[in-house]
């Protein structure tokens, strides 16, 4: 689905990034602050053009037209539109703008898709509320819902669960699993929450100074790796249901 060939981020890492991402997979990028997680996502989202080649579905990123782009990529960067005065439902409907004909109204199936997203992200009580008046947790969920609702082949998310409560984290985790369930949608997200990354992803990339230094299965995330790259002592336990790592801080350290 996504292929990076010799991509060099501006940190000046010696080894360029060359990776392949399978269709239907969920990949998490972790790493200390400034390691290049967000930059890598921004490069795939065409926010800037680093040296190297990025291919999506076999096509060069630079060869994809502006009109085609939302069919391939949806990017959640966490930015909140200021003072947006539409209702939540109308806001979510805008995610489907690239699927309707210019100057034509949204079809019934788009309305239903927006309804389904409201239900999936547990936003029913805010359906008719003006978007900019939503509580911060619901607002972030709505922004994530918008990027999922675009239904692009590749979903990029920069720290999707930052500032979210435990209820919302569960919702986002289930939504991402559902999004990739059909096997034709791929998710790549950066996260500062290592437990969320380990619980949600099928694959974890660890970044440092603009390079991918570890490419591991979530089960392999352990205290040594975290100590090496994050310079933090942690305790890693296993989730009793799926055996995946859960990261805990030592009290007082």
């Amino acid at each position, binding site marked *: 689905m996504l292929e990076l060939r010799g991509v060099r981020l501006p940190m000046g890492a010696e080894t360029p990034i060359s990776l392949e991402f399978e269709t239907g997979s969920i990949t998490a990028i972790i790493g200390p602050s400034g390691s290049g997680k967000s930059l890598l996502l921004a490069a795939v989202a065409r926010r800037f053009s680093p040296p190297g080649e990025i291919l999506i579905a076999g096509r060069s990123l630079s060869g994809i037209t502006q009109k085609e782009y939302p069919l391939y990529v949806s990017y959640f960067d966490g930015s909140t539109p200021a003072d947006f*005065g539409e209702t939540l439902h109308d806001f979510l409907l*805008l995610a489907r703008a690239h699927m309707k004909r210019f100057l034509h109204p949204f079809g019934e199936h788009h309305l239903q898709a927006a309804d389904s997203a409201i239900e999936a992200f547990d936003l029913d009580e805010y359906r008719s509320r003006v978007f900019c008046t939503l509580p911060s947790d619901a607002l972030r969920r709505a922004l994530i819902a918008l990027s999922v609702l675009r239904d692009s082949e590749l979903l990029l998310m920069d720290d999707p669960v930052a500032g979210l409560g435990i209820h919302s984290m569960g919702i986002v985790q289930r939504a991402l699993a559902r999004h990739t369930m059909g096997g034709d949608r791929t998710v790549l997200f950066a996260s500062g929450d290592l437990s969320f990354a380990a619980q949600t992803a099928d694959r974890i990339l660890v970044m440092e100074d603009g390079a991918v230094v570890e490419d591991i299965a979530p089960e392999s995330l352990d205290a040594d790796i975290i100590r090496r790259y994050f310079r933090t002592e942690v305790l890693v336990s296993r989730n009793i249901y799926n055996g995946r790592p859960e990261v805990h801080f030592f009290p007082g350290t």
Partner: protein
Amino acid sequence: MAFGFALAAATAAVCTVLAVGKSPAAALWYAAGGYACFLLGRIDATGPPPAPDYLHSGRAAFLSLCIIISTRFFSSTIAVFCLVPVLAVLFEFYTRRFLTLGRRDTVLAGIALNLLFAVPALFMLSADPRFDTAALSGLLSGPAGASIGAIYAPAAVIPVLVAIHFFARRAAPELALLSLGRSYFQGAGMNHERARTALLCARGLLTSITLLVAGWFGGAVLVGPAPRGTKIGIARDLSTLAQYLCFAQILLLASSLAGSIFIAPLWFVVTGVVFFHKNMRRIFPHA
């Protein structure tokens, strides 16, 4: 129901205007002015609120100065009517693209431009005995206030406005996306630069139509109902439009009775107070 009341009020306002001796052309001029105000509000709703209206952003003052200066060079009214939209579009591009003024800077620039307009206007009124006060009155209240009897001009403007209105209704989702910002608009596969250029042209065109048709009373945008939303029903849209028409006719009546040189500054102050009362915290967050 709301549409019915608003339409009845607008009709009553038109009848009153005609009853005090104004020509049907004057009523039609103001109907076109009200319509242009309404559409300008629609276009401005694509930006984050508060969007300083065309009085307080200084657009009206700038274009008025352009009209005063260009009438010295061109004797033809049609030439002036053609020049003003071009200058309005250039003004939009200069302030939004080149200077990229935020709302606070727009308001400060607006105050400066309004002062700049007030000084030559007052100078010409008091110091120059040849200056025609009727011309200034026409500038403030539009052609209707200046009793221009030609009915064909507003009749020609209204179809243009209907076309813009139709387009704005159909393009409501795209305009809403544009208001979300570049990343959202481009994320939907549309060209942000091209859309913004078109929007600036439309805003300049509507500003010039509003000033040429309704004069400074076009500040009705500021106190009118906010025409925001992607799914505005036709009834609500017509109701809002009828309110604008009603409002424009009431302003015409007031200017007929009290004189536009008195009403326009009063209107400017009232709308300014409303604007700053509503938006003080947003424009000057640390005030």
